[in-house]
């Protein structure tokens, strides 16, 4: 026989008395697990949607003014392209996409518009891989989960949404919707700008922004045609919202003290508010379960110790030290907490998966990491609330416990 035999037998002998405490811890943990699980997927969905809105951080020369977020690169001030390397090689988390830009005014066929040089991501990746580090060694898409069934983006048109393209040749150009319509340009046509012929690889969908009146070409081609060298007007960044809320903008400011870093505060504020509300809700429930579950377990344990006075006294008469008695009650608490944690995780996950889509409108999947959290919290609550009853049992006067003597 081992200590656990004692504990198991006693639990099964008096399981009906234990049921209330088990139910308290089980329901409490399951509610928190369900909230955490739904919150996680809800936050990810919100972050994914906010990230999908487009670039949300803009790096401009210090002297630049910010009149319109999407037209902020239309100014003469410039800064070195080396800033991009600094960002790409930094250990900053949450830089999902970088889009360095140089814009120059052009006129062709009687139409005035803007030629914007952009750098495709394959060149960043080559650079980062060559230097052995950088942002592309980190997860893309802000680490958000991919919803099964999501449709893949068409490669070139991601510029509209993501502000970045994967590949762009020296003589390739992407044409904004307005320019395309005004000049009757279609995919595959040739367009001559600043004396160079470009092949139009895509006419972008309308966005309602200044991008519609732009033509995009490779950054280095535009730099060469404009005779400006390795300079930029702006770097657009798609920063992960959760990282922005954790101070990404301040970190970029530290990295590039000579530049001006701005962000769309409303987007960040929304994310921060959502995160804070969910965190507060989880903490509130945790406090409730700790109090209610803990009180229920402590109450049960005290009455269990009282009921078993004679048994404890007998064990002491037979030579059990206070350590054995203490361990006996704490092991029981441990088993109760473990069972409550595992059960709470299972029930909470089931609630989240079944009701999550109805409550939050997002697909919710099980999160195995919450099992560890659930068991840890349940065991901690059970042990803490059982400690004093267990200590009382261990300190029980064996003579009082054996009242018949």
């Amino acid at each position, binding site marked *: 026989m081992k200590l656990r035999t004692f504990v198991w037998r006693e639990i099964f002998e008096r399981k009906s008395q234990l049921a209330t405490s088990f139910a308290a811890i089980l329901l409490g943990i399951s509610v928190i697990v369900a909230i955490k699980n739904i919150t996680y997927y809800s936050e990810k969905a919100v972050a994914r949607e906010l990230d999908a809105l487009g670039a949300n951080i803009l790096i401009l020369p210090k002297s630049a003014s910010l009149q319109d977020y999407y037209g902020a690169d239309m100014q003469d001030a410039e800064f070195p392209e080396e800033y991009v390397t600094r960002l790409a090689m930094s250990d900053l988390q949450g830089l999902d996409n970088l889009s360095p830009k140089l814009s120059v005014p052009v006129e062709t066929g009687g139409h005035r518009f803007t030629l914007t040089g952009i750098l495709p991501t394959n060149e960043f990746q080559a650079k980062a891989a060559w230097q052995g580090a950088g942002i592309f060694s980190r997860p893309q898409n802000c680490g958000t989960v991919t919803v099964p069934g999501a449709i893949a983006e068409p490669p070139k048109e991601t510029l509209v949404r993501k502000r970045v393209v994967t590949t762009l040749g020296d003589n390739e150009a992407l044409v904004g919707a307005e320019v395309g319509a005004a000049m009757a340009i279609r995919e595959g046509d040739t367009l001559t700008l600043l004396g160079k012929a470009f092949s139009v690889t895509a006419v972008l969908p309308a966005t309602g922004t200044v991008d519609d009146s732009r033509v995009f070409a490779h950054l280095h081609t535009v730099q060469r045609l404009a005779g400006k060298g390795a300079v930029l007007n702006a770097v657009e960044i798609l920063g992960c919202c959760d990282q922005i809320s954790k101070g990404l903008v301040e970190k970029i400011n530290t990295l590039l003290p000579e530049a001006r870093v701005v962000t769309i505060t409303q987007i960040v504020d929304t994310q921060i508010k959502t995160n804070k509300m969910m965190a507060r809700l989880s903490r509130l429930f945790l406090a409730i379960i700790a109090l209610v579950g803990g009180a229920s377990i402590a109450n049960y344990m005290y009455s269990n110790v009282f009921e078993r006075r004679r048994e404890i006294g007998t064990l002491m008469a*037979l030579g059990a030290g206070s*350590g054995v008695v203490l361990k006996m009650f704490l092991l029981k608490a441990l088993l109760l907490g473990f069972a409550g944690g595992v059960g709470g995780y299972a029930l909470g996950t089931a609630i989240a998966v079944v009701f999550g889509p109805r409550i939050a409108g997002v697909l919710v999947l099980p999160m195995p990491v919450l099992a560890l959290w659930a068991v840890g919290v349940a065991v901690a609550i059970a042990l803490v609330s059982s400690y004093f009853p267990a200590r009382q049992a261990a300190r029980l006067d064996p003579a009082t416990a054996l009242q018949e003597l």
Partner: protein
Amino acid sequence: MKSVSKTYAHRGRMVKALDNVTLEIERGDYVSIVGPSGSGKSTFLLTFGGMLSPASGTVCVDGQSLYELSPEKRATLRREKIGFVFQTFNLVPYLTALENVQIPLFLARLGDAEQKRRAAALLERMGLGDRLDHKPSELSVGQQQRVALARMLANDPPVILADEPTGNLDPETSEAILGFLQELNDEGRTLVMVTHDMNAAGKAKRTLRLVDGTIADGPNAASQLVASMKGDA
């Protein structure tokens, strides 16, 4: 036991359970303690067994002063040297007969197989070889007391303290239990038995009478008790 006193506060009144008791019990002795209810018998047995510290005086077992030991060491001494027999047996209700007997062996940290082997042998000796897996509620009163005796013997204690061991038994079972206790004494174990049963007390080598916390020794102790009980009535 030397100059042992113990006083209780009971409903605001001080009750002297043991009053300056000095007593020596030799190895291999068989002593019965008799006395009216409230005379201090229980306190005597608990104090002697290392379960209730006296207000003053010393209690020594095998030359070791019990109450100078730490509670943990006193528990170890109880486990190794003292076996308790209780009036209501105090079997753990949710354990089988075999597991109940295993308790002292488990507390002595013996391996599971050895625990089972020794517990089964003890129950065989008690005539309960076919009741190993029975819980106390599935056993008769006499069988329960025999399980309790087997449990008491598990660690082979040289000293046995019995509290009314026949108090809850029919005459036939009482005789069997008393015969068994006699056997244990014949093996050289020291036996101290608290009892109301004059027949049981008569089996001991000597009988002590405990009245109002003081002890009286001698051949007339039992008859004095009978007289005092009649007087009470």
